[in-house]
């Protein structure tokens, strides 16, 4: 499909670069305004990732770092669809996720939180959306954890998502939260988003119909990437 530029980002829907409640953002945000321009060919294109480079366990975080047993914690299926702002499915979108284990501990060289590592859990996975834009991961419910921002700030349980659409203009990193988590209203990172409706769009509902009986609960997290203008007035014959 050929088209024009991508819909401009609604920057008021996203967290502002500098959100003083999230202290790290103050020194890690630009001082000057962004320079806006319509998408050029550089932003209208992007890398294409085939599913051929995926391994059989890449989307199964329950098993992809297993050493000698099942990882600890509630077993989950996380699934959803990637569409664009016009509602069209985005196939072949690479999704990469990472998360803490059930105790809220990340497997990372710089992490020193007291909660233990799980020898059978790594915390990263990836997949590619199918022709309908659908994806699914199997994983463990991540735990909340404390972080040095305010004197007693805790992150709600979350899974980090990195998504590629078909254009670099659509590149997005976000976090998925869990319905009913009491820490959500207290999170400075989530509350950097000004619009409560935008905050809610990051909270995945429990999806009982998708649960795997006697195995895993399910949460559904749909993702919307930027849409693209159509160019019906271009002076070219369709299909030529």
């Amino acid at each position, binding site marked *: 499909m*050929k088209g024009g530029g991508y819909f401009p980002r609604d920057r008021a*829907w*996203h967290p*502002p670069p500098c*959100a003083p409640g*999230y202290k*790290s*953002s*103050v*020194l*890690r*945000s*630009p*001082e*000057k305004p*962004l*320079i*806006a*321009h*319509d998408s*050029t*060919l*550089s*932003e*209208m*294109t992007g*890398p*294409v990732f085939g599913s051929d480079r*995926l*391994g059989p366990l890449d989307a199964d975080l329950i098993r992809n*770092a297993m050493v000698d047993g099942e990882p600890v914690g509630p077993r989950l299926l996380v699934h959803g669809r990637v569409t664009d*702002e016009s*509602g069209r499915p985005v196939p072949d979108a690479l999704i990469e*996720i*990472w998360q803490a284990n059930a105790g809220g501990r990340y*497997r*990372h*060289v*710089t992490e020193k939180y007291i909660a233990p590592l799980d020898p059978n859990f*790594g915390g*990263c*996975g990836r997949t590619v959306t199918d022709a309908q834009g659908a994806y699914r991961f199997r994983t463990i419910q991540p735990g909340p954890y404390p972080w040095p921002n305010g004197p007693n700030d805790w992150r709600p349980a979350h899974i*980090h998502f*990195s998504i590629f659409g*078909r*254009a*670099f203009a659509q*590149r*997005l*990193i*976000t*976090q998925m939260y869990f319905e009913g988590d009491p820490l959500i209203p207290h999170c400075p*990172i989530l509350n*950097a988003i000004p619009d409560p409706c*935008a905050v809610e*769009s*990051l909270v995945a509902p429990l999806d009982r119909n998708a649960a795997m009986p006697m195995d895993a609960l399910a949460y559904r997290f749909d993702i*919307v*990437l930027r*849409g693209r203008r159509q160019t019906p007035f271009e002076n070219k014959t369709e299909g030529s």
Partner: protein
Amino acid sequence: MPQPLNIWKETPSQTAGPYVHIGLTPSVAGLQGPFPDPGTEIAGPAARGERIAIEGVVHDRHGAPMRDCVLEIWQADARGVYNSPDDPRYGERDPALFGWGRAAADLQTGLYRFETVKPGPVPTPLPGGRTGVMAPHALLWIVARGINIGLLTRVYFADEAEANAADPILSRLEHQDRRAALIAPREAAVGAAPPVYRFDVRLGGPHETVFFDA
């Protein structure tokens, strides 16, 4: 009430956080697998064009190196064709160039480095149905703890003065003295190593890097 437009809202961005390496560059986090770090080969050995490296440090508003950031690059091949079906010249692309790369800054020094080939000038549609030519450049996208929405900038090359002077994006900067922050100087090649274009990124201050909303 007018008819509804039925436009969905983009999923809001959230910071990649301090543990971004687990998901994007697992080996830097200390993970062995489950898969190798993606994006380490931008240009295969057979790729056309001059072999180069792009390296630098991202500095916060206080001037400190952001040693935990992760960067991605997206570029055309030596003849200015992107490895994407949405490039009208896709059929002429260099099959040895993937065009996308990812690197974590060094956790001790903050230095990032990409090894690739130098991209060519890129024709692009411009508003009003015109076509323009962009000087050789690479998109650079930066995420880290404290970055609420990925920062997009462009790396241009200092030895392309003529093309840079005519570039439609550089030309639209209101403050033309900011161009310098987008143009990477070329350092002398040492031995057999590829020449290095140095591209430091600065948040804040009079020499702040230009970031785009595109």
